[in-house]
């Protein structure tokens, strides 16, 4: 369908302990580029992160308005680990593409829960080819949640269709006890579902489909 620019922040995480630091605080196994979720001890979402390997660093891309909450969560937990975080939001733009983009010099491309994530320098901005309505239409067809529509601090990853970002066998992380109990008892609460467009409880409305969080 196309490409759209996102309201996103980009943090650069450096240091020998960069993988273990992010892995110990999020739901997915962070040993390569991946999407993962930061959760509270009650397993409520702080933000959904895309972690991208960039040379000796990890770029962490998240939803712009949640940046402060993420930093407040990460900063106090850098204790004796070799981890440095830099905010490189102002020098990069973030886009999501519904199809795999062609590799070009200066573009960092990674698969994300949203589609294909593209990070480009602000000096070389890309042209958006998809409107917000078209992006919402794409999300409702593919059952993809998005911050402030389905993803919020009031829900846990199972509520908003992010089961695939909760690793079943990795070790402890914040919120793991709650999520593991929910999964093992098969009591995962409300679920993200695709419903006809215009449904009363729709969280996102596309032309044909909508998304809703319902008890099923």
């Amino acid at each position, binding site marked *: 369908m196309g490409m759209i620019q996102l309201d996103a922040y*980009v*943090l*650069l995480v450096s240091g020998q302990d960069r993988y*273990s*630091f992010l*892995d*110990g*605080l999020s739901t997915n196994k962070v040993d390569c580029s991946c999407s993962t979720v930061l959760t509270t*001890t009650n397993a409520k979402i702080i933000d959904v992160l895309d972690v991208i390997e*960039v*040379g000796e*660093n990890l*770029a962490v891309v998240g939803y712009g308005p949640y940046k402060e909450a993420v*930093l407040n969560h990460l*900063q*106090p*937990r*850098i*204790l*004796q*680990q070799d981890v*440095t*975080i*830099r*905010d*490189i939001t102002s*020098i*990069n733009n973030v886009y999501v593409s519904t199809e795999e983009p062609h590799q070009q010099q*200066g*573009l*960092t491309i990674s698969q994300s829960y949203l589609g294909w994530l593209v*990070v*480009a*320098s*602000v*000096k070389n901005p890309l042209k958006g080819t998809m409107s917000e309505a078209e992006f919402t239409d794409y999300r409702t067809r593919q059952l993809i949640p998005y911050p402030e529509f389905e993803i919020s601090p009031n829900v846990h990853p199972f509520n908003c269709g992010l089961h695939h970002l909760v690793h079943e066998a990795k070790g*402890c*992380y*914040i*919120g*793991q*006890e709650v999520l593991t109990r929910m999964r093992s008892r098969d009591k995962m609460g409300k679920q993200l579902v695709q419903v006809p467009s215009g449904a009363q409880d729709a969280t996102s409305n596309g032309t044909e489909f909508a998304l809703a969080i319902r008890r099923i």
Partner: protein
Amino acid sequence: MDCGTCETAPTIEVIQPKVVDVSLTITEKAIEMLTDAFGDDRSHALLVGVLSGGCSGYMYDLQIVESTDIDCQEIEVSGFRVLVPNASSHLLDGIEVDYVDRLMGGGFKINNPNASSSCGCGESFA
């Protein structure tokens, strides 16, 4: 991605908690177990640290080390050298190092008055 200038981007300021002069105690049972582990060699030290992670956010890190590059304060407790990283001193002041002898979930345990909650296995706290 613009990484040519990444190194010049400002580092996010890490909130550095105040370094606290740590006092800690070790129970008799834990001293017995440490005596078994160390033998007569007192050149090594018990490093009691905290890492991020675990179910509750912070995870205890116990190691027997000869020396460390970590910025630590050294305390002597019952003839043992104990090293506590300054970066996590605010989380460890007043702790009791205990040893629980049971078939499941046994081993060294930390009783921490600074912890508002801890996970089921006792390895992490908030």
